[in-house]
Every structure is written in C-alpha cells, then in structure tokens.
C-alpha cells in the first residue's frame, strides 16, 4: 500500500511539473492546409443556426475565451474579436476547432459533430468587436 501511495505522489508531482502552460502566443506553425482553408461554411445561408453555435460556445469555449470571446489572460487564450482571428476564413476556423493545438492548450473538438463545429464558426463571426474594422469572410 505504501508503494501505491509513493507511486501516486510521484506521479502527481511529475504531472504538476510538466503540466505548466508557458503562456499564450500565436503559434506560427498552426496553419490550416490550403484545401481546409478554402472550405465554405455549409450553414452560411442559415444564420439562425448561430443560436445553436452560441450555446455550444458557452458550453465549450468560454472557459478559456471568456463570455464575449476576448480571451482569458490567465488561460493565455486568443482574443476571438481581433482582426487577426476574424480575418481567417471559415474553413481555417473550422480546421482549428477540429484539430486544436494541443501543445498550446487548445483542445481538439473533433468530438463534436461536423455541423456543430460549423455552428461555432457561424457564432464566432458574431463576436466582431464594435471598434474593429469589418472584414469580409474569406471563402
């Protein structure tokens, strides 16, 4: 039993040591392939589906990106209102939601059905900051 306790304690210490998030930075290596980038949102003509996207965003994303998507500093999460994010194509955002960037703390959401991931993209488009210049969605 003592061996079990030591094993668990050592494992917990190792987990804590290796579990540090070193701080958020845009990852230049996190790029969607060109074919993924060009994918159009199949729900683009169904803006009402964004309501479901909002629900999904609150379920899955606010923990790191905050209620309005501005990104929680303690989580080093991206501000989704920034032009740098909003200028990305629907296909790119879909690819990033699908694959995540696990080494930078962004989990993969491939567990969600494909249409729900597109609903998230639809909702992300509504997060544009009032002060930010408007950008056409790249297709």
């Amino acid at each position, binding site marked *: 039993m003592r061996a*079990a306790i030591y*094993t*668990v304690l050592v*494992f917990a210490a190792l*987990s*804590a040591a*290796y*579990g540090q*998030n070193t701080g958020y930075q845009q990852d230049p290596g996190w790029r969607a392939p060109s074919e993924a980038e060009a994918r159009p949102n199949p729900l683009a003509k169904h803006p*009402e*589906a964004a*309501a*479901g*996207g*909002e*629900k*999904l965003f*609150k*379920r*899955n994303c606010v*923990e790191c990106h905050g209620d309005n998507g501005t990104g929680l500093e*303690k989580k080093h999460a991206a501000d989704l209102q920034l032009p740098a994010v909003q200028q990305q194509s629907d296909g790119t955002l879909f690819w990033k939601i*699908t*694959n*995540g*960037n*696990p*080494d*930078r*703390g*962004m*989990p*993969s*959401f*491939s*567990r*969600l*059905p*494909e*249409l*729900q991931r597109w*609903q998230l993209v639809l909702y992300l488009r509504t997060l544009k900051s009032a002060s930010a210049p408007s950008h056409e969605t790249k297709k």
Partner: protein
Amino acid sequence: MHFYLQMSCNWKKTALQASSILWLVAMLTPTACRAQESPYFVTYDHHLEEPGNLEIETYTTSGIPRAGQNAYVAPYLELEYGVLGRWTAELYLEGQGTIADSAVFTGWRLENRFRPLKREHLINPVFYLEYESTSEASRIQKEIVGGGPDVISPNSELQPIKNHELEAKLILSSTVRDWNIAGNFIAEKNVSRGEGFEFGYAFGVARPLATLASGASCRLCRENFLVGVELYGGLGSTVDGFRVHDTPHYIAPVVSWQLSENGSLRFSPAVALTSEGSPVLLRFGYSYEVRDFRSKIARLFGGKR
C-alpha cells in the same frame, strides 16, 4: 470496505437510491453541457481529457449469474486528469461484492494515454500504458484479456492472490461522418506469475442522435444523447494459446446522456456471445468533470493560476 459490504447485501435498495439521487442531481443542475463524452465502457477512442481538467467517474459492473454462479456488483472509481494536451492519466480504485459471499477491495490501477500525433488524421493512434495492483477477485472487467476473470470461485480463494500487471493497448480511432469508430488491441503481462502475455480486443462505434445543436437550452434534446455498440473479449495467452471459442466475448449497446453542464450518465447491457464468464453484464456510469482543476488546486496553495 463497509460500503461495499452494505452494497452487496442491499444492492437492490442501493441501486434504487442511487438512481433517485442521480435523477435529482440531473434535475437540479443547469442544462447547458459540454462536448459529449464517449459512451463506451471498455473501448477507448482518441479523445483525451482537456489539460488541467479532472473527471471524476463512478461505474458499476454487475454480473447476472449462470447456474452455479453468484450475482456480483463490482463498483469502481476513476479519476481522470488531463496532464497535457496529449497526455491523460487515470487512477482507479475498485471493489467487488458477491451475493451470498463477501465484499472486498480488489485494488488500484494507474493508466496513461499518450497521443503521438498533433493533428486529426483518418486514423488516430493513442498509446496506452497501465499498471495494475489488483487481486484475482477483480471483476470490474474494464477490459477482458486471456480467458477473462474467474466469476465462480469464492472471494476467500481469489482475494489472497495478488497480481501486479502491466498492460499496453494500441488505440486506433477515426471520426467518419460523425461516427466514431475505435479499435483497441490489448496485451497484458502479469509480472507476479508466469502467465505469459494475455491478449484481448475491443471495438466500438458510436454517434450522436442529432448533429445540429438547437438554440434552446434543453436536457432531453437528441443532441445530448450518444448511442453505439461495443464488442470486446479475450483472445487467450502465450501460455494457453491464442483462442476465441472458450474465452468471454460480449456485444454491448451503449448509450450516454449528457445530464448537465459537467455530468453525464452511461448505460450498457452486455450480452455474452460464448458460454464463458457472466451471460449478461450490466454497466452503469456517472461522470462529473471538474473544469480547471489545476488552477483551483494552485489557488488553494497561493498560486495565481
């Protein structure tokens, strides 16, 4: 230990109380919920725990007996922690209560899953390594290897036999048109005794009932349910030979229901395909996710994260 003893003696009453409590919890918790957890009990897919989150899961495996066997309930607690984006660790504590016999604590397990590839692929591999310190009386059947567990001998004979085992799995998992398809190939080595290597397998397919999220907050929406089927069993060992006819194999429908923001309920009745093991296994599970567990613990000790 006392808990298990009570459970084996009053298991019907306990099951009724547990289901009442779960229902109450479901009704009192918010209806928003997270991405669906996998509905499988035995099969692993390629999705790992989010880094920093802790999932607390309780399960029971109940065996309906054949002639000459006694019914049993084998509960286990699982603590699943996302260490890194591509590394999840889990600790299990398990017990077992057999009708007209006794109730025992059967041991613990520590498992790790590593995802070698950063991105989603057509087939996503995950490496699984586990250490088990359990007794021969273990009946949770989180996986089935070799000839399966001994469900006939009394606990007084099985409990003194301690096993230290290493287990490895190759998990291959795909997402095809919102279907998850997963296969696990299992090899286990008992380092306490010369049993050779024991082998097993698990396959599963599952899908959400709805793929489009409704805008309304709801508990009984189809999008909150995942359904599927699992197939798992033992494949013999290097000592007794590779075999399938006299080892347990089960086919099991699975369903999971996302009850609340952090909680989900799972159920699976598994039917035996051979005359080995229990003819029916009933599995129940409830999991609760503690988000941002790492930061909460760090704050307890004065950290900022």
